[in-house]
């Protein structure tokens, strides 16, 4: 009897470590690591100044951190929390995306109107590309051929040929574009516009606008409905879109472009990431300084987790 109970208890804690969600805290210069099993912060790790974009290498062996005010991209060992080295990043790196080759980081240099391409192995800058003012949103197509930078004040999506590292198209979107993602095997590009209050859907083949998604939250003035970060559910069926100071996340049917639900989260929701099977979604809420956990199937918030000040980026890390 006693033995059985003991065994059961051991079984429960069997995976010594659960998967994690890593959060960057822009105004605390730290990362908060959330245990996905217990939904609690289990570690807080110091970083360079003003950490914003964070992303893991494809094998999760290192974490890349945009330490904006330190003017560097830091490379961290996620096991120890130690900074292994800095990458040359150009000034004020805000957000970046890792190329499918697991080697090239495309970095938006917000203060410099430049996209910097860094080779993470040789730790050298291989290209700098002039883009519009305040570059922010970054995306790479699944086949790795196209990189996108969106510029907040120029209001454009800049299309970069990753062979030549040169622009081959510039397309206008609504005011203050913030985030970009390729969908549906790279046939569509979505760009969110914070002040415009829309997501523009582009046909990638022709770089032309295919649709525009608008949002309307009951009881919230349209001015405050400001789409920023977004992520796609399994099979790209549903897009979850953070709507900034409206304090809601929209669930958008990615086929019909219709908004199906609005989910209440913390204040000024910014970015997000899923757990392994995409059953849970974790949103960073800048102003309230917390993370909302959303049950994806039910489209309901299930928990709020206090993190550091002005949480910005979110990145999933499997541990098993």
């Amino acid at each position, binding site marked *: 009897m006693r033995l059985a109970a003991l065994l059961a208890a051991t079984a429960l804690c069997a995976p010594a470590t659960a998967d994690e969600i890593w959060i960057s805290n822009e105004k605390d210069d730290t990362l908060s690591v959330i245990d996905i099993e217990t939904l609690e912060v289990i570690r807080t790790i110091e970083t360079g100044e003003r950490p914003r974009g964070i992303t893991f290498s494809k094998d999760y062996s290192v974490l890349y951190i945009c330490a904006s005010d330190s003017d560097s991209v830091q490379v961290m060992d996620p096991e120890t929390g130690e900074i292994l080295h800095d990458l040359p990043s150009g000034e004020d790196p805000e957000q970046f995306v890792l190329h499918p080759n697991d080697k090239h980081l495309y970095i938006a240099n917000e*203060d410099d109107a430049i996209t910097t391409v860094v080779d993470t192995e040789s730790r050298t800058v291989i290209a700098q590309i002039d883009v519009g003012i305040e570059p922010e949103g970054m995306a790479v197509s699944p086949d790795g051929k196209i990189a996108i930078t969106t510029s907040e004040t120029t209001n454009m999506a800049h299309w970069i040929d990753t062979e030549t590292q040169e*622009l081959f198209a*510039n397309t206008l979107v609504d005011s203050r574009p913030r985030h970009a993602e390729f969908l549906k095997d790279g046939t569509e590009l979505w760009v969110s516009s914070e002040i415009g*209050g829309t997501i523009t859907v582009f046909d990638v083949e022709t770089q032309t606008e295919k649709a525009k998604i608008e949002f309307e939250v009951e009881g919230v003035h349209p*001015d405050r409905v400001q789409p920023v970060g977004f992520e796609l559910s399994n099979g790209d069926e549903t897009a979850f879109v953070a709507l900034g100071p409206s304090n809601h996340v929209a669930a958008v049917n990615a086929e019909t472009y219709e908004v199906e639900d609005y989910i209440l989260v913390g204040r000024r929701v910014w970015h997000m990431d899923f757990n392994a099977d995409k059953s849970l979604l974790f949103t960073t809420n800048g102003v309230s300084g917390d993370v909302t956990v959303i049950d994806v199937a039910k489209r309901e918030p299930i928990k709020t987790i206090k993190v550091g000040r002005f949480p910005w980026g979110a990145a999933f890390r499997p541990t098993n």
Partner: protein
Amino acid sequence: MFRLSFVLAGLALASGAAQAEVAISVTYLQQEVERPPVLSNLDPIPEDLGMAGAELGLADNLTTAKFLGHKYDLTVTTVPEGADWAQAARQALANSPFVILDAPVQAQLEVADLPEAAGAVLFNASAPDLSLREAECRANLLHTLPSDVMRTDALAQFLVKRRWDEIVLIAGEHPGDQAFAEALKRSLQKFRLELQAEKTWVFDADLRRNAAQEVPLFTQEFGDYDVLLIADELDDFGRYIPFNTWEPRPVAGSEGLQPVTWSRVVEQWGAVQMQNRFADQAGRAMRPKDYAAWAAYRALGEAVTRTQSDDPAVLRDYILSDDFELAGFKGRAMNFRAWNGQLRQPIPLVTDRAVVAMAPLEGFLHQRTELDTLGIDEAESQCQAFKE
């Protein structure tokens, strides 16, 4: 007569085939105005106030233009007092129909009423006077600087929210102070607050030496109150009031808690990036008039980008349409009021060190946009020029 200070020309590198060339020339036309003497010289007014904002607007527009094959340039013309202002204006208009005006009300009206200005697009980046948005409004004159009442409405909302309803006022004698005091009173009335007492600042002593002696006595008569409002837009005596009042009370208006167009302490909503760009370029922090001039050139640039046109009539129509939106780093899209050409915008309530609140404050509702709780609304507007 007048001097042409400098010309900044930006040649955009056309990417892709250039169609009909789109080229925008803007003149920043400034009337030099002598500032009356003030008690303290701690905060000199920068020489390039306003024009540095137009320069940043040019730089911002040029970056976008690079990808569209458009061209922009900026000419700065400063007209000394006593020189021929009208001739300078005519010359600017002969060069281009787009002019950013940095001048008092009468000088702006003189430009707007020139035959050469018919069909021009002029921006007021310097005059907060209500008259320019009301009876004296002109269809060719848009306003990117908020009116006095937009700012005082913002402050009144804060007073309502905090229930500071016992209010007293000290106003200076300068016309700008008096206009701001009038705006304050108008806003108090609008938000159903009552002014308990009012005094005029008539001292001519040097307060650096004896503010601690004069101000307590001067404010003793007010009795008890919640907040002391200051109308000192000249920046003369206001700095000597806080902490010297007879009753220990907060100060707001031209001093203390100030409703402003812009301030270096605004850092949310992506503002840090613009503050940095401005500081890199001008070597100082961005001020309200810089912001208004920046917004003017950016509004024009936004209309050019969206319409692909440099025709002033096309641009004016677009700027005044519902489609127009300017991302002004104050948390909301900004556009123009179709009834008087005023740029709608949030008003930060700031101290020297932080943003205290952003107006419109939560709870002040409006059927069109909450931004229209600040300033002259359509129903009360006396402006006729935009109705044609």
